[in-house]
């Protein structure tokens, strides 16, 4: 079988089959990196890659694993950012209190959006989420008494860890980002490996068949949506405290498209896909600054080309390694791995 695999599949197989060493190695490298790299500019890019990875992971749960294409995830990103910013500037709370609260609120908004709209399928759902994103932006722009409208929220404090502000210079922000990415990846991986995860993939592959097999589609779809909104909100809170200033123009439809491009390019329905996508789509514009004018042409072209030639993304597709049964499942007596 190995001889018939294409390049991408070989890479995937390589990564997946050596999972046990690859993961600790990758984590070790990431932990040590900021001590080697002196340039704050590069660190900043890595932190942004981290933020977009979280966004992509959360969108991947809804789009890659459950097959519901959401074009409005920038809305939850915005809600998380604004909630955390407002709580910390108006009530003086610390990031470590406001960020989880913001994420929870984003999740609640995900629930409120998901319940009525997840009945819709395919394109209708996507357009509705897009409309929701614009409505959120309008609310942020117009509800001046709460959000300051177009003036945005200024002087959002950096996260305080036992009295020290975490920023790029002391590498605190980087490690905080790693922690956030780690938590998100762990939670989403746990969901994906569980019964719920299998239900989600079943819904993606054929919702009607899944329903007839006893999967409660609506419930699972809403759950995926809420979790996804939660983590997007968390990323938003992090962003707000990192840049210290947000306004309604930060979170537009373009942002949703960037996140979608990352998921599509990296690989839908995989855990490593969002990371690859983020690295590629966030670092390349920096390297190719001279091509800046064409940036959105490139994003558009990525969407078109990927859909045409590799809709599952670079790292997406069928699982190539043997499926490992979860621990508590009784193994078949014959010793055959299934």
């Amino acid at each position, binding site marked *: 079988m190995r001889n018939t695999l294409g390049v991408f599949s070989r890479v995937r197989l390589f990564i997946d089959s050596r999972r046990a060493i690859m993961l600790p190695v990758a984590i070790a490298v990431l932990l040590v990196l900021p001590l080697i790299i002196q340039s704050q500019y590069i660190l900043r890019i890595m932190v942004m890659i981290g933020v977009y990875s979280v966004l992509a992971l959360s969108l991947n749960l809804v789009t890659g694993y459950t*097959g519901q*294409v959401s*074009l409005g995830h920038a809305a939850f990103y915005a809600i998380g950012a604004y909630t955390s910013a407002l709580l910390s500037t108006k009530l003086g709370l610390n990031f470590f209190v406001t960020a989880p609260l913001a994420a929870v609120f984003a999740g609640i908004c995900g629930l409120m959006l998901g319940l*009525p*709209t997840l009945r*819709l399928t*395919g*394109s*209708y759902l*996507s*357009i*509705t989420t*897009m*409309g*929701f994103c*614009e*409505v959120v932006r*309008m*609310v942020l*722009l*117009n509800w001046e008494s709460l959000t300051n409208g177009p003036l945005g929220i200024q002087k959002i404090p950096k996260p305080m860890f036992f009295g020290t502000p975490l920023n790029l210079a002391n590498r605190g922000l980087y490690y905080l980002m790693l922690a956030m990415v780690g938590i998100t990846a762990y939670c989403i991986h746990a969901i994906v490996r569980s019964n719920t995860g299998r239900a989600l993939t079943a819904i993606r592959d054929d919702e*009607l068949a899944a329903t007839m097999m006893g999967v409660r589609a609506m419930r699972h779809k809403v759950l995926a949506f809420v979790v996804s909104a939660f983590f997007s909100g968390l990323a938003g809170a992090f962003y707000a405290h990192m840049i210290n200033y947000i306004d309604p123009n930060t979170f537009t439809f373009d942002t949703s*498209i960037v996140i*979608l491009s990352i998921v*599509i390019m990296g690989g839908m329905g995989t855990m490593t896909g969002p990371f690859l996508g983020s690295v590629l789509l966030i670092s390349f514009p920096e390297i190719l600054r001279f091509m800046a*004018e*064409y*940036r*959105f*042409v490139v*994003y*558009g*072209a*990525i*969407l*078109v080309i990927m*859909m*045409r030639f590799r*809709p599952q993304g670079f790292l997406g597709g069928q699982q190539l390694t043997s499926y490992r049964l979860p621990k508590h499942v009784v193994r078949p007596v014959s010793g055959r791995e299934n």
Partner: protein
Amino acid sequence: MDMVLQQIINGLTLGIIYALVAVGYSLVFGILRLINFSHGSVYAFGAHISMLFIGFNFGLVPAITASVVITGLLGVFIDKTGLEPLRKKKSKGISALITTIGISYIIQNLLMIVFGSQTKFFPKLFDYGNFTVAGTVVGIRQIVIFAIALLLLAVLTFVVNHTKVGLAMKAIEQNQKAAHLMGINVNSVITFTFFLGGSSAAIAGTLIAGYYQMVYPVMGFMVGLKAFAAAVLGGIGILYGSIIGGLFIGLSETFAATYLGGSYRDAIAFLILIIVLLFKPSGLFGKKTITKV
């Protein structure tokens, strides 16, 4: 009362423009069950090409005709390069939607690069002054736009309902396979539909550019979304539904701008869209379709 009447006139003018763009969405959705997200950028493209040719001093009518043809061909190009390969591969519907989103970004940003992102001047197409009736000011150009749009919509309805091609389109809408078996060249008809969509977008773009006298690359984004809302409201796939939907959205937007404030006008279209999709996804005039398993 004066104000209400005045805003009704404003709203109807705005609305007929949305209707013209909405028709393009309906045509493509009807035949392919696909929401052609790139329609907005095709509309902007049409306006830019008109501006370009008028700038070359081709004369008004030849310039607009050239723009209509070229934009129609762009529509065909989009189908041939982006969508037809997906149909051949029998990809999921969502792939086509994402492809059209990608195409809209490509077209819009290429317009920015080629023509520059600043707003450009477009010559006034109809300047015949105003007249006042019942205390409201009605611009002659508003009436002219209304008339031209209605004429175009009538032509499109005629094509769809009384020509062989239109019959073929309706047949494909109902059952693509059966139509193919009956000898209809499905791909040709689809190509023709995209051409029609592109040309109507070009006409809409030119009319609006002439009305507001401005052309800019992102002009398709908002209008595209609102026209889409109009198409959905009327029942996507149904031509006269798009017209009614467009007028409704135009009126709602104008009244929202008047009584709620200018910053809310864009949100109204989206709210209507969300409400329609939640409560009656088939729209005002649409019929519920039953999918058999």
